[in-house]
């Protein structure tokens, strides 16, 4: 008889990793739409560029590591990384920025560490941090949201013009007319002004901030969708946002003229994206629910500290990388209490 011998269980839920990744991709759609509405076609072009280059790098790596290429390409993890990079960098950054970004993420941060599931750092954030350090000018060159540039919106609204801006180094000056600082940068480099004065005087804050709020709301929507679909749990995002909110509230309450208000902290910059799409990355995050809470608290606190006292305006990438580093340690000290045990085990074990 040709019956197959297999270990139990004999059934499994139709619940493939590619499905998880597909859900994550779907959940980034609102943010993509919001970015396109507020900042033009740039993000979409970056996204296509990132996906293509990421898949190419992934295929080459798999080939060199002698793994089945199609089987692993299908898991979609490279696409998720690519999409996150594309949506995190300025929409009109030159094309090579995103290509270097995906190269760093896929080749260095993922495959050199042994591929999917083995990378200690979040690939997208490794790429982002590297780009920010290497190309600070390109990486901070956000165009102003369309509400601030009135008629000139036409230029950014044209798909071909957007392509030209991204791919031609010669015409790069074209974008200069429209670039502006992000709210966090404005606050960072405000000179002697109080927070209140900045808010009144700088159009990015007084009028443009709603564009950023809109994008954060889009990320939030995607995140809630993923929690609803049980792709990840609420622990890390909730802990991270709460920590950031509480910390910024405390400082803001103490000295409102010097510190940014809590809504700004959670509403602009990479906070929402980081909370739902980066801090929830299971591979490089903490394992248990309690661990995830600690991880989220760490990220939230670090973001606040680096934003307020560090030299970079936004801090999500650095905060995440630092917490990635501590994740194994958190894991060892947050084992849940198993059934039938009075206490949870602590530490690594096996050291004897």
């Amino acid at each position, binding site marked *: 008889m040709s019956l197959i011998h297999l270990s139990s269980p004999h059934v499994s*839920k139709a619940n493939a990793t590619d499905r998880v990744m597909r859900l994550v991709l779907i959940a980034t759609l609102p943010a993509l739409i919001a970015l396109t509405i507020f900042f033009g076609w740039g993000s979409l072009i970056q996204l296509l560029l990132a996906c293509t280059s990421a898949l190419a790098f992934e295929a080459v790596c798999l080939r060199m590591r002698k793994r089945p290429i199609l089987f692993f390409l299908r898991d979609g993890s490279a696409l998720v990384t690519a999409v996150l990079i594309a949506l995190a960098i300025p929409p009109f950054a030159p094309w090579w920025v995103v290509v270097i970004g995906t190269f760093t993420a896929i080749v260095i941060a993922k495959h050199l560490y042994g591929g999917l599931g083995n990378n200690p750092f979040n690939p997208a954030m490794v790429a982002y941090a590297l780009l920010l350090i290497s190309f600070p000018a390109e990486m901070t060159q956000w165009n102003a949201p369309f509400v601030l540039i009135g008629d000139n919106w036409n230029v950014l609204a044209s798909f071909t013009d957007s392509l030209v801006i991204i791919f031609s180094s010669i015409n790069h000056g074209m974008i200069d007319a429209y670039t502006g600082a992000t709210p966090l940068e404005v606050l960072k480099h405000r000179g002697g002004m109080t927070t209140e004065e900045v808010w009144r005087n700088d159009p990015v804050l007084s009028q443009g901030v709603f564009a950023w709020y809109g994008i954060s709301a889009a990320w939030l929507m995607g995140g809630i969708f993923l929690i609803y679909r049980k792709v990840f749990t609420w622990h890390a995002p909730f802990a991270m946002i709460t920590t950031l909110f509480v910390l910024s509230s405390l400082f803001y309450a103490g000295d409102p003229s010097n510190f940014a208000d809590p809504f700004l902290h959670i509403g602009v910059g990479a906070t929402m994206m980081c909370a739902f799409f980066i801090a929830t990355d299971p591979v490089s995050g903490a394992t248990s629910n309690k661990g995830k809470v600690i991880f989220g608290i760490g990220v939230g606190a670090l973001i606040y500290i680096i934003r307020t006292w560090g030299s970079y305006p936004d801090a999500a990438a650095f905060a995440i990388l630092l917490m990635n580093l501590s994740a194994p340690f958190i894991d060892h000290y947050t084992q849940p209490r198993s059934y039938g045990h009075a206490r949870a085990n602590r530490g690594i074990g096996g050291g004897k």
Partner: protein
Amino acid sequence: MTRIYSFHGGIHPPENKRQSLGAPIRQAPLPARLILPLQQHIGKAATPLVEVGDQVLKGQKIAEPTGHVSAAIHAPSSGIISYIGLQPVPHASGLESPCIVIETDGQEQWCELHPIENYRDLDKKELLKHIRDAGITGLGGAGFPTDIKLNLSKDHIVNTLIINAAECEPYITADDALMRERPNDILTGVEIIAHLLQPSKILIGIEDNKPNAIKALRDAIRERNLPIELVVVPTRYPSGGEKQLIQLLTSIEVPSGSIPADVGIVCQNVGTAAAIYRAVIHGEPLISRIVTLTGFALGHRQNYEALIGTPFSVLLEAADVDRSKMFRLVMGGPMMGISIEDDRIPLIKTTNCIIAATQEEMPPAPPAQPCIRCGMCEQVCPATLLPQQLYWFAKGREFEKARHHNLFDCIECGACAYVCPSNIPLVQHYRFAKSEIRNEEAEQLKAAQARERFEARQARLVREELEKEQRRKERAEAAAREQARKKAEADSVSSDTPDPEAELKKLKSAASIARTKLKKASEALKNAEEKGLDGTEKLKETVAQLEEKAAAAENAWQQATGAEQ
């Protein structure tokens, strides 16, 4: 009403129970050959009482328990013993094991039965012996000999008796059918169990997906006015796991490494209760059971009452199997059952279900992808473990870490593997790690035992040497005393003063000899104590004696020199 608690995790796999509940329990055909493995239970294999060629009657005991944890086996039908030896048996290893084979004669002739008229008047020991003689083992799970569990009240305080009617695995409906059709058998069985254990509370735990069984049991309990509480729990796999059901009904967790009786609880399955009823009230030993035959390769998916030892092939034929469609044959449920390659193997006491699945029904698992640490496994683990970490450690052969993460509390329920989006066969990895650790431990134990034996031998040699020494010394002393006495006698006669120089030297060397001896002996003692050997008492005594002697010799010499100066 008893409150219902909850356990961590759990899953809701498709139930697939409906298909086998359409028709009432049907009698399976009498096969030409019955194959009875000597080991159908946990513990030692039974010892055959018959020989090839013997004529046996239905219900006759053909193998008796070997030692305490073991169970008897009876002839399920009358016939002739045709073979005793190795046969394929239902076991995950797929290996063969000793069996008794009966060629049935179709007469179904019973041996003499001994029903018990009024079990309450019987001595409990007698009643337990009767149940043991009926070869009853747990019919729900692993097949632990039932009489041992029922004897627990001897050294445990049993305050809660839980009857497991949850039947949480998909596909299986054997207990469900039994409860619908024979609720009174079950309840009488429960009464007998309660009579033996004298619990203060009796709970029947049942999942809410069996409305008919719930109704049948509830009506029967009400009619007979029994002090039994029927607790309906929400359907969630694995609520029928012993530890999970206990947690659901009492919120108590059985401590790791303990048995439920340690926290005052005994669990029995409904099928076991019915078997006890038949053994006590009708005197019938355990020779048949209800088994669910299901899966889409079968024409008649329903419950059968089949004789223990009936080959699977006979049952599959009876259920109108379409072999061309059969892709996977599973004994037990889809979550924890074992896959069977050879359908000549027999039904045993613990076989509650046989699934003949088509390829669409249980497709081969897609190839495993890497673990993305998504944590879904952790969310469903009823033992609150970290399956992804366990997997990591098992794969990397970091067994000590796996154990630190409580690998041995894994009940192998398969919930983690069921939800894993990367299709990793997690349970297989855990089984592998567990068996590796067990092997390693066995090796270590062997080595430790050898070392212990070696050290004990060394200590004995040292001790013997010391004793010999002691005896020699005693003899020498006696001789010396004798000489001294003789000398004193002579002295008293001659009253010659001894040579003081020589005397002094003698005393000195005696003192130094005594010191060395003492040193040696105390070293031996120290060694022995460090290694924790026994026999140190004797060594201690020796040392004390030597100490005295050394002190005496020292004194004598001191005095002598003092007198001299």
